[in-house]
């Protein structure tokens, strides 16, 4: 349970958490740009030497993935959930229709006295009469 409390503690201080996260982001970029901390000698390509290259790469990559995927999905790839289901829902409709006359009959046999009786009420009274 303590874990849930910890999460709640952090959620109640969401603004502080966000500020700390932003500070961490900035710190990572700054540290990366200091040659004494991060030795870029083994980088394979030129752009990797630019400061904040991987930060921009990560951010732009993420945005591109989201926007491209959503655009692609809305071309018609995303569709309704029952797309693959075979159209055979007539059976349930029939069954519910078959019940209607019965309930009407029970209503006719027992005229309601004060307030509309629900199904359960009607059935209970009907059962009592038969017994």
């Amino acid at each position, binding site marked *: 349970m303590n874990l849930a409390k910890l999460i709640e503690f952090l959620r109640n201080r969401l603004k502080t958490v966000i500020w700390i996260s932003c500070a961490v982001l900035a710190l*990572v970029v700054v540290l990366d740009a200091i040659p004494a901390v991060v030795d870029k000698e083994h980088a*394979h390509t030129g752009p990797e030497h630019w400061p904040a290259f991987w*930060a921009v*790469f990560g951010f732009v990559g993420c945005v591109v*993935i989201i*926007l491209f995927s959503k655009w692609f999905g809305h071309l018609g*790839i*995303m569709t309704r*959930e029952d797309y693959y289901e075979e159209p055979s829902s007539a059976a349930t409709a029939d069954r519910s229709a078959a019940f209607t006359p019965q309930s009407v009959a029970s209503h006719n046999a027992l005229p309601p006295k004060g307030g509309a009786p629900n199904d359960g009420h009607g059935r209970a009274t009907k059962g009592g009469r038969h017994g």
Partner: protein
Amino acid sequence: MAKLWLHPSLILILGSLLLLLVPARLKRAYLFLIPVLLFARILTMARGEFGQVHFLDWTLVFGRVDALSSVFGYIMALMCIIATLYGLHVKDDAQHIAAWFYVAGSIGCIYAGDFLTLFLFWELMAFSSVFLIWFRGRKESLGAGYRYLLVHVAGGVLLLAGIVLHCNAPGHDWSFNLMDVAHPTPAMYLIMTGFILNAAVPPLHAWLPDAYGEATFNGSVFMCAFTTKTAVYALCRGLAGMEILVPLGVIMALYGVVYAVLENDCRRLLAYHIISQVGYMVAGAGLGTQMAINGACAHAFAHILYKGLLFMGCGAVLHMTGESKFTELGGLWKKMPWTFVFTLIGGLSISAFPLFSGFVSKSMIVSAGFEEHKYWVGFLLLLASSGTFLHTGLKVPYFIWFGKNKPKQDTWDRAAEPPWNMNAAMIIASVLCIFIGCYTPYLYKMLPYPALAADYHPYTAYHVFETLQILLFTGLGFFLLLRKLVPEPTISLDMDWFYRKGWRVFLWVARKPVQTADTFIGELYRLAGLVPLMVSARVAGLFDNEVIDGMVDGLAESIRGIGRRLRFAQRGQMQQNMAFAFAVAAILIIAFLLYSNFTALAK
């Protein structure tokens, strides 16, 4: 060799048959014991070739134990322990039997030294794992299981065709070794197609999310570990260095990421990320350098654990709440906080966060790409890892455990931490994910080229900061674009459309011209309805309506009726027939294995 060589798969096959005889109170202990025995057997296996059987003209090799097969055998046995523990409370023996047969098939493939043995176990895998889908018991799982089976049978046929062509070519025998990838033959392409179908390389991948999203809560934990990784092993063994695998792997890595954005079902999302992650391994196998093969094996090792962990986390949510769709979940941190932490550890591992397992394995493949001066491979794989963190590290935990969506009251009431055994399995997997990430020699010593792996240091300042920047700024993008990512209650059309809906297009094409022609003729009769022609037109119309239409409609109707009845009759019986055929196959395999043991003993 004068001593008995016990095939590890035999432990599982015999163990699962004996499971039926074990009394109920000992069942849990027994379920735990058998995978542990399997693991112990694999740990104590000496290197070399064992279990050779002469069958007709062939020499079957059931046990080739070398560096490459050992690392895969080790992790698969370990995963078998974890996944069985996870489903320990499942009362249905058949589910455990199916799962163990499936693992036995997978381990049989790993240790197979020739193509025929490989094929035998390859099919055992497909035919046993399909039961893990069917046991879910939903109407959808029945269909998904059949599709899974049909696709795998088709893949198996291609593989077999390739094997027969390849092995009968002059200068070749049936042993399963590295093929001449510099000069690919049509037979090799057929074998490759069989392999990459199991590795779920687009466009042959749609079976994976279809099946893994529909399997039982613990069945998916097994499935996510074995089929694709066996295929990765087969690629590393037989087709390492095959050029075409590199672009295919990179496409896979990105394809899975794109579909994961659209997905609303958490287990289907994870399934798309299997495709993405296996893409790294396929690319690694395609690069084929020692570094890349090391990377593919290390990543398969790490992947089996963290993907198992992720499927266990989402499986726990499904098991407890009955829901796996993001639109039906949300805010579960109050009810299932520990499941959240385990899933998050899986998410951080798959995203290759420093100190987690993915970091020390994925980077090997990316580095191998850069070192081969295939920069596009390196950059695109890094882009895919940004997408991986986006979904598995952020989207899955956020929309299940946080998010603005409120689940239905009964979903909320059902939500609670899962039983102890599921938690225990998740704890073991989590600890291993962190251990691998922190203590690299554990994994690196097991790799096929341990000397090279010992020289590889993932924890350089540059690599750590590169990864941190990519991942943390992906996180920033996620929270800024959160509104775009809110799940929608939809499904995404994929390549399975062609075999799920394609037949309707075929029917439409067949029906439409017939109908058009029919209407056209009818119209012609009406327009040409001059007085002298009226009678004949009426007769012709009558003929058209009563006889031709009647025949066509009647025929169509009766065929449809027969088809409908046959289909229902088939479904029940076919599963029984399959279970029967499957049992016969199992007995044959046992006979073979025992025979191989005894012949080894006789020598």
